[in-house]
């Protein structure tokens, strides 16, 4: 069953408080060498049947209008993943 993957990230100009907290915590566990972290969201939309252009367009619209808030977030990718099984 194919899956449409939508990835959403906080806008670059918006300070990401969660990412910053993670970045500050990494060295405590010995993970040095990372200068910053930004935390986003990944949505997996399952599709019964084929991913037509129409389905993909509908996923893109959902990504822009519901899965992200354009004031604070960008949709960075909408892609199709075929399930190996």
């Amino acid at each position, binding site marked *: 069953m194919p899956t449409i993957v939508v990835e959403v990230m*906080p806008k670059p100009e*918006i*300070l990401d*408080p*969660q990412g910053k*907290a993670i970045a500050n915590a990494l060295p405590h566990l010995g993970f040095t060498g990372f200068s910053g972290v930004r935390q986003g969201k990944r949505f997996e939309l399952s599709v019964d049947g084929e991913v037509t252009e129409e389905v993909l367009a509908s996923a893109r619209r959902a990504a822009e209008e*519901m*899965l992200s*808030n354009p*004031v*604070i977030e960008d949709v960075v990718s909408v892609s199709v993943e075929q399930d190996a099984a």
Partner: protein
Amino acid sequence: MTAADTPLIGDFPSPAEARLDGARIGVVTFPGTLDDRDAARAVRLAGGTAVPLWHADQSLHGVDAVILPGGFSYGDYLRAGAIARFAPVMTTIVSEASAQQAESPLPVLGICNGFQILTEAHLLPGSMIKNDHLKFICKDQVLRVENTATPWTAQFTQDELIAVPMKNQDGQYVVSAAELEQIEAEGRVVFRYVGENPNGSRNHIAGVTNPRGNVVGLMPHPEHAVEAGYGPDDATGMRSGTDGLTIFTSVVGSLAGGK
């Protein structure tokens, strides 16, 4: 059980004078709303009639104004307020609140999560992200009332300082630079945090209004400062602060045709 008939522990009657039963204020309950009963109680203490509204019911039952109370509608899933925006009741609220032709579009107040819902519904500009220090805030907060032209703030004096509780995790108000300039230029900042910025909000903004002035959103909770004994500490004694009540008497007064 409705919000209108369940007394709280320690309940005592509201002031008897100036009860304007004509002003019917709807208080919306979404799954996960917490402060609907407090908001309804504030309306009654201000002399209005509180009408419980249900998220799944598109009808506003003829109310004169609507309050979206605080809480965690739909568990804050996706983003705070993001799912509540699609509730049937919101369709009617958005259409009546943004009716350009209407002489007096529906007054709407969003408190905390209600403010977040109003931004997600595009009735108010901007959005809320996590507090810059990442901690949940629960404290009394001093605000300056900078716009007294809305039906929700008409009885304040310009730049009046009020103290009301504040409790949230996603309270950092963000907005694009262009829109920030616009709402500042148009005097649409209604409430501003006084003193240290509690959550990193742009320009210390605690509450804003739409261009028409009928829709107001704010992060802190005026409905928790309406009754002596249950409000913030103030000069007159412990928990005596009732600064929030003026928001509710303002809308009741505005609907009655006066101030």
